[in-house]
């Protein structure tokens, strides 16, 4: 059984359809990149997968292991967060809240988990630092560490490398690779960088305003869809 299967799923805002009859599925251990221009409904689709937005048509089937307590999410950053007074540790450990139910405070295991995730992402020395004073790359690591506190199985990331410099972007992608390959975490990442997407992902979901492509990276390279968008870029690769 797939982790998530979408069957002709559509999303719309007040009768205006933004995602139309999309079918694809996500298996355990997959690394799926969702690409497409701004406004093609990538964020909307992710919110749909998270259950934050109801589809206006079609059906999303989720496997047994797909529970809110098994999801990690790195959202597109909001403006309010940019000047929020919070320490790195406070942000990271808040990812554990979905295991707490109504109980107050954090358990010892929660604290250990927060610490080990900060270690894993190399931000242990930032723990007392203020989130708003960090660089973009550091902030993304903090949000990633938080989402790892919330899940060990599925991560959804919405344009996590926006605003990062090239070095930080490369580091971020290799971190995601490691989580996927070494820790077996299923990755669903929204990106607008096609080049990085086909380099790292296993499958591609390319949204455009009129149609979409879904398949493996190999199939994408050879599809008319992929060729149209990759055209020049593939030549760069060969030269």
């Amino acid at each position, binding site marked *: 059984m797939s982790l998530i299967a979408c069957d002709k799923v559509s999303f719309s805002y007040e009768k205006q359809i933004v995602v139309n009859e999309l079918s694809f599925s996500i298996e355990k251990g997959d690394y799926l990149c969702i690409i497409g221009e701004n406004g093609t409904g990538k964020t909307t689709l992710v919110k749909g997968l998270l259950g934050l937005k109801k589809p206006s048509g079609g059906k999303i089937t989720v496997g047994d292991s797909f529970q809110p307590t098994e999801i990690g999410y790195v959202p597109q950053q909001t403006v309010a967060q940019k000047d929020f007074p*919070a320490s790195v540790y406070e942000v990271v450990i808040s990812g554990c*809240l*979905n295991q707490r139910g109504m109980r107050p405070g954090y358990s010892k295991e929660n604290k250990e988990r927060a610490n080990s995730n900060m270690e894993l992402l190399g931000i242990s020395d930032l723990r*007392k630092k203020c989130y708003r004073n960090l660089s973009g790359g550091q902030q993304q690591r903090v949000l990633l560490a938080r989402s790892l506190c919330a899940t060990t199985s599925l991560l959804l990331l919405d344009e996590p490398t926006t605003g990062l410099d090239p070095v930080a972007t490369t580091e971020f992608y290799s971190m995601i690779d490691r989580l996927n390959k070494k820790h077996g975490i299923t990755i669903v990442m929204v990106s607008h960088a096609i080049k990085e997407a086909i380099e790292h992902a296993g499958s591609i979901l390319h949204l455009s305003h009129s149609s979409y492509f879904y398949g493996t990276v190999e199939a994408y390279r050879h599809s008319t869809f992929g060729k149209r968008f990759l055209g020049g870029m593939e030549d760069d690769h060969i030269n």
Partner: protein
Amino acid sequence: MITLIREMFSYPFMVRAMIVGTLVSVCASLLGVSLVLKRYSMIGDGLSHVGFGALALAVALNMAPLKVAIPVVIVAAFILLRVTENSKIQGDAAIALISTGALAVGVMLVSLTTGMNMDVYNYMFGSILAMSREDVVLSIMVSIIVLILYVIFYEKIFAVTFDETFAKATGINTNLYHMLLSILTALIIVLGMRMMGALLISSLIVFPAVTAMRICHTFKSVTITAVLVSIVSFIVGITTSYLYATPTGASIVIVDIILFILFQLYGLIIKKNV
């Protein structure tokens, strides 16, 4: 001065005012941290004007003020939080509509019934003398409930304030905490109005949080500092009010302004030295 202060505490009504005022200030500052960070500061202002309208209605109907004001303001809090979230009228415009509307209705009710008497003046500008024994008991009870709920749900309130989408996606009932936040805010605004007045109560919510954020960089330290700031400004403010017979609410806000400026300067100095 010392004797004056000792004299101040020999009046039972002053002791009552001290206890209630400190509790309400602490609660308001706690809620304020979340409201300010979520860009909901103006909601406090809107609710206090609704509160004034409700109190005027109670006076007109000759009913117990708090029993009318509390439910009305809770309903208004729900509506305001909803329209701020998803509305075609811009959130801030909606707040301005409701708040000035309620104020106008209140003023009309007052002028058609009792006229601008001392009672009404006290609702607008606040007075420590205005609190009845019943008010005091109710205020203490509600404040303690707010404090307990805040401590129990502190971590969740942080999560919902920092990143509501993430909290919701990972299975936290964000609606519940939103509701909690609006009910608690409504309660504290109604209770604080007797002391601060409808026109100034939102300063109790906004000032301590904003002042603490000048120098603090973690959520916990902002929360604790806001509480301390609220206690200091209340005690200094009410003492000033007693000594110089100035209006309570305004005296507290003046202390708030002074603290804000001091924290701002201190914040600039420590930033320069880093």
